């Protein structure tokens, strides 16, 4: 759960497609001004969850409220505050990029032409090209522009950077960092490129098989899972290390590298002192945390 005034509330949402249960009893609250990383394997239900937020899917059971309205009944006023870049890259193929941008901008009073020009220049988008002739990476850039161009309050990015090259990905992250300068803006980003995501998110939701495994702030996750390197001061480590149920442990005679959960740094230092060791404590990367959470269920 996220503290504060929620802009999205999901209560016991379930959704199935034939025999596949895409979402299974999802309860979630998202408050404004956060950048949320939505993580999960292929088929975990990330895109389905995002589509419920904007009413493209309707739940079989439960209720989804976005900006105070039932997601299935969102009107132009609410949808005019939401930007959505989707993984299919579905765009109006017959238009040129310039025509497409003009067409989409015609729907929004708040379209930011300065941002549009800057974005086109930074991302090196050729506006004269026909959308159908764009490469997957170029399409994604255009999709991101269309989703962000009107300064939406809620920005939903479903696998936005999967086709971008490393430079474009870095530019995209810069853009996200610019966008989060607005304190009221909420961004939900679903991605498999965790090394990128961890640079910008402040909250994490991890999904598996239609269920939410974790819903917590990124800081608390980084505090919860730690990598501990113990080095013995007198040559040999004791046979039994004083840590209960470590997640992993690799050791030699004088050194051990452990991954532990729910230990305070002060506790770790005290325990290291007990066995006459020096200790080096580091937080895990998002990718490592993700693997642990998903594998341990």
């Amino acid at each position, binding site marked *: 759960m996220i503290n504060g005034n929620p802009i999205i509330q999901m209560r016991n949402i379930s959704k199935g497609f034939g025999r596949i249960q895409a979402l299974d009893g999802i309860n979630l609250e998202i408050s404004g001004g956060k950048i949320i990383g939505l993580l999960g394997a292929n088929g975990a239900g990330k895109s389905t969850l995002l*589509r419920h937020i904007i*009413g*493209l899917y309707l739940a079989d059971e439960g209720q989804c409220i976005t900006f105070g309205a039932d997601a299935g009944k969102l009107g*132009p006023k609410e*949808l005019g505050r939401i930007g959505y870049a989707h993984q299919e890259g579905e*765009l109006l*193929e017959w*238009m040129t990029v310039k025509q497409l941008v003009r067409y989409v901008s*015609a729907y929004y009073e708040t379209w930011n032409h300065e941002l549009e020009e800057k974005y086109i220049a930074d991302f090196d988008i050729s506006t004269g090209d026909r959308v*159908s002739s764009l490469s997957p990476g170029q399409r994604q850039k255009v999709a991101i522009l269309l989703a962000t161009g009107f300064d939406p309050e809620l920005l939903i990015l479903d696998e936005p950077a999967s086709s971008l090259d490393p430079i474009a990905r870095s530019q995209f992250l810069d853009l996200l960092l610019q966008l989060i300068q607005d304190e009221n803006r909420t961004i939900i980003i679903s991605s498999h490129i965790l090394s990128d995501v961890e640079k910008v998110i402040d909250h994490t939701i991890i999904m598996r098989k239609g269920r939410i495994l974790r819903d917590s702030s990124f800081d608390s996750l980084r505090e919860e899972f730690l990598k501990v390197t113990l080095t013995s001061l007198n040559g040999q480590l004791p046979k039994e290390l004083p840590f209960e149920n470590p997640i992993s442990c690799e050791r030699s005679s004088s050194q051990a590298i452990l991954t532990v959960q729910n230990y305070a740094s002060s506790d770790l230092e005290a325990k290291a002192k007990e066995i006459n060791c020096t200790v080096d404590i580091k937080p895990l990367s998002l990718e490592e945390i993700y693997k642990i959470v998903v594998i341990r269920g």
Partner: protein
Amino acid sequence: MSILTANMKHLYQCRGAWFGYLIILCGVPIALFFTKFDDRYLGYLLISFWTGVFAGNMQKDVLTKPFSFCLPGHRRIPKLFIFWIGGVVNLILGCVFLLYPGLSFPYVLMAILAGGFVGMILYFHGVCIPLLKLKTLLGMYLYIGLIVVTIFFKWDKVVQNIIISWPIPTILAGGLVCVWFWRLLGRDSLARRHCGRLVCGEFDTSLKAQKYRQAQADRKLTAAKAKFFERLHELFLRRMNRYEFLGKGRYIWGNFYMVFGRGFGTWQMKDVLASCALISFLVLFFGFVCKGEGVNLLFVILALVVLSLDLLPYGSMLFPAGRAEKYYSTLVLAIIITFLAGVLTLALTGISVLLETLLPEFGSKAEVLSYHGMDIGLFYIFLLVIPIALSCAVAFPRNLIVKIIIVVVFMQGWIISAGVLKQPLIDVIGPVGVVGLVALCWIGFLVVLHYVCMRRSLVGQGR
């Protein structure tokens, strides 16, 4: 896994092919019907042709996959597949000559072989359409041409006599064609030509077809066409900008542009010419056959054209328009489409009535062919069918097989009801009844549209 199994695994992915098998199976009773009642033994050539189309389509689909190009020893598999399928199917079909009266056993064997080779020639024609870049439309016109010639001039009886009278020369000629085709399919260029290409088969999904058409249109984009698109774009933007932001009017015009833009965007002159040619052919063909009774089937056919439209496209592009806005804008669109299709239908009705006065009768004394125009009094059929077609277009936007089945059901329904009722529907239930039925169909459309817009998934798997 054997190379042939790898090839077949590709084929299983083509779900549309199952519909193809169904068409081929349906051809068997038709062929036997002609054999029994009219002593015409070559009805099975229809099946040969369609088997060729499907076999060619399947192998084209396989050849486009880079995997098939790289797989060692796979290059000769498509050729073997095509010849095995064609050989077995046509040999079985040629057995229809077992029913031919008065032939001795050795002679009937030769007739079966000769009939099989004639079947192979039609089969190869079918294979050529998808596989050897024989233009689909040209191929289909040749096929339709064959049917027309068969109906009016009974050419199949001539070929049948050749098979019976000169089976050995027929076998030799068929064998030569097979050798020539074997060499043609043996070229390395066949695999290279198809590898990695974006192609579209006759039964591919509408999404793939749209992508393919767009790619083709892009290749042939001229400066004049680009200018036309720009003007069209400006026109719609001006219309949109007349209405307030986040208002219904802006979205209705925008949606109108989105739906029709797809059509304009992939528009090509050859498509327009092909459509005109097809409509002209239908108006003429149906006016002459079945003593002109078939011509009114055009009221059904023209209404069914709307089945090809996707009225709720680009669902995953988020615009400031909710489900209610989508409902209203699609309803407006449906009314506009009905109006435009209605005007076209009335224009064709007028033309066919004019043709009735202009076209002379022709034929022999035994069978005089005279042209009959469409009956304007039956226009209500169009109004009855179009809401049903629109409902199906909304409910099954991407399911080509369902759409084809709907077309077949309507055609069969028309023929059966004509046989059962023996008089126009309006004479049976009266004008009030017809008005009530039309209203009922439109209410049905509103219910379907409301359900799709308000209750169903707008994108992805649930759509």
